């Protein structure tokens, strides 16, 4: 059932890309709206700054749309586009780190953890987990973001990061193990470390 749904989505995406290649503005906008959420969240989680993330995503969409004529329709769009987003976000972040851009770094997310229905304890737990994710090195953090934010499969993550699939599998495993370790330590009394 899941596979059938995926095939249907792929076919719809190919049709959309065909239309976009023909220059249909509405098709470009549809692609933008389909991929915006994961793109902007990914860019933010890489740059930790919304203005920078918006710039990176804007550049990524413009580049992707300009390169569409050479894009092969049989290839999945999302890993290709996600790679562009990641590259743009990393590049903008490195400019930020070198002080070439006049943005405030590490801004607080104004909407972070706004979930009125969740209990305070639950929110605290999620914030601790988020802090733990940010403590992972890029090598392990990036595959994690691609899996849980961009919802890519291991094969697609491998394609996006140009790594062997076995490497991706092992990095995801290690990342999850480390997070489990953080959580166990946190729940076992070492909470202060992650606040």
């Amino acid at each position, binding site marked *: 059932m899941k596979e059938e749904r995926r095939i249907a989505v792929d076919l719809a995406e190919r049709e959309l890309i065909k239309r976009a290649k023909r220059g249909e*503005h509405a098709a*470009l*906008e549809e692609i*933008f*709206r389909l991929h*915006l*959420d994961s793109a*902007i*969240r990914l860019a*933010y*989680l890489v740059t930790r700054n*919304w203005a920078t*993330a*918006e710039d990176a*995503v*804007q550049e990524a*969409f*413009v*580049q992707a*749309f*300009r*390169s569409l004529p*050479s*894009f*092969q329709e049989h290839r999945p769009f999302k890993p290709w586009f996600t790679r*562009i987003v990641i*590259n743009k976000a990393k*590049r903008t972040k*490195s400019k930020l780190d070198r002080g070439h851009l006049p943005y405030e770094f590490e801004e607080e*997310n*104004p*909407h*972070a*953890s*706004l*979930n009125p229905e969740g209990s305070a304890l639950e*929110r605290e*737990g*999620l*914030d601790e*987990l*988020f802090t733990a*994710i940010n403590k992972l090195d890029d090598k392990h953090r990036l595959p*994690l*973001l691609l899996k*849980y*934010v961009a919802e890519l499969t291991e094969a697609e993550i491998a394609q996006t990061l140009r790594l062997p699939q076995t490497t991706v599998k092992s990095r995801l495993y290690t990342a*999850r193990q480390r*997070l*489990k370790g953080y*959580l166990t330590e946190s729940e076992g009394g070492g909470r202060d470390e992650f606040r």
Partner: protein
Amino acid sequence: MNLDERIREALRANSQWPGSPDELWQRISSQLQPKPKRSRQPLWLGTAAAAVLVLVFVFQAVWNPQPPPLPEAEEAVPMRMLTAVLPPSGPQLVQPGEVVELTLDAHLSSQGTPAPPRLEIWQEGDAEEVLVMERGLSGGELVETRLLTVQAPEEPGSYRLVVRGTVEEQGQLLEIYGEKSIVVAAAEGS
């Protein structure tokens, strides 16, 4: 909640975009507006011109089969000089972030339409090239030196650096062009 759900939720809760999709789309959409295209000669015209040239050479060879007189020995051009000025073939291997020099050609523009000079960096993928960087350049410096120094990308891979556009020099519009292929080596320890 299991670990997968907790990770997903922790990331979702901490990455809720406060911006507006409509505004962002407007910005992207305005960048995608087609630029006025240069008038191009039709393809058949170039093909026809090439065919005429080939025919001229063929008829010349048929009607005038005598080999051209050999040049005098002292007039022969030493081949070593030619090879010395030829650019190295194949892509240049560089380190991430290394500064690469790009030699530029400049000649009088035949189009007469000014186009601001720009640098494009294309990454060569498995089946296609992806434009990874594009930026405008200042014309004055390019005209003076005919040389551009470019910082190689940090990410390992094959790239093609292209400089194109027009610059004005003493009231004349010059077309500049430069191209170089590089391979960025993987950084040590990665």
